[in-house]
């Protein structure tokens, strides 16, 4: 029986902490590190100050195809693929790519469209051939799509947004003002 290397274990704990800080669900950390579930739950509580959420990970590939998530997923995946080519190490590339993606994602509304767990699921879906990249015939950017979808004349969601794209988001921004103007004037 070989005693586990302390250095390796330290690195694993470090990796787990980094993933948890970035918002990884427990299942992600469990898959990517060799630490036991019990230790991970303790670590999770220490890092986030709350027990890990229960339940399954999101498992639908459809989410990645909807308009805004597709744009963010595609941006993240392009960065990830480049980082993988440069560094070669899968989880390293993943974390670095996610940090690079966050620089773009957090300036819009502070809201991250693609959470870390979703990003991780996306990578797994592509690795398992459920999703793939498709080239937009207009801007030549690579976008995420279902595998085996027709590749001819594909146009991405930025070059040709669906007719109601972005409307719900804007509505949410305007709503508080509208509500104010509807309130009885007697308060003033």
């Amino acid at each position, binding site marked *: 029986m070989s005693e586990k290397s302390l250095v390796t274990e330290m690195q694993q704990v470090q990796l787990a902490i980094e993933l948890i800080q970035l918002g990884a669900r427990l299942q992600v950390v469990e898959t990517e590190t060799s630490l036991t579930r019990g230790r991970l739950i303790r670590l999770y509580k220490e890092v986030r100050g709350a027990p890990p959420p229960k339940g399954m990970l999101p498992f639908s590939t459809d989410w990645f195809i909807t308009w805004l998530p597709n744009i963010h997923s595609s941006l993240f995946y392009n960065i990830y693929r480049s980082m993988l080519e440069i560094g070669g190490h899968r989880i390293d590339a993943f974390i670095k790519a996610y940090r690079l993606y966050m620089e773009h994602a957090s300036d819009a509304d502070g809201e991250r469209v693609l959470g870390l767990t979703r990003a991780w699921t996306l990578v797994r879906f592509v690795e398992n051939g459920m999703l793939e990249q498709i080239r937009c015939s207009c801007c030549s*950017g690579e976008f995420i799509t279902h595998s085996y979808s027709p590749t001819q004349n594909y146009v991405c969601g930025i070059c*040709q947004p669906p007719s109601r794209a972005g409307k719900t988001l804007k509505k949410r921004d305007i709503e508080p003002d509208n509500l104010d103007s509807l309130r009885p004037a007697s308060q003033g």
Partner: protein
Amino acid sequence: MPHTNSYLADIQELNLSYLLLAQNMLRKDRDVAIFRLKLSENMADLLTGLSSKQMTQLSRVNQLICRPIFEEADRISKALDNSRELGMVEIHTSLLMAAADRSDGMLSNGV
């Protein structure tokens, strides 16, 4: 001509800033620097190893040592001139640039 001289000073300053920034980034996190700067492995090695004297020498030319990485101008203009733009220009450009070519050589790659 004073006009030309001021361009020359700007270019040389930009060259030096670029070299300093690139070396800093490469020494801090090589992989991320290669991604952000779109460098080849060889170029990354070269820039990492430059001495201050070499940097000064490299920057004191009358041409800029870095150039836009966009392979085709019309791809970028499509991202910029989108008539139905929904605040996505930065994300779109970033997406297109993320897949940009980092390979060596200006001449070998002129497809």
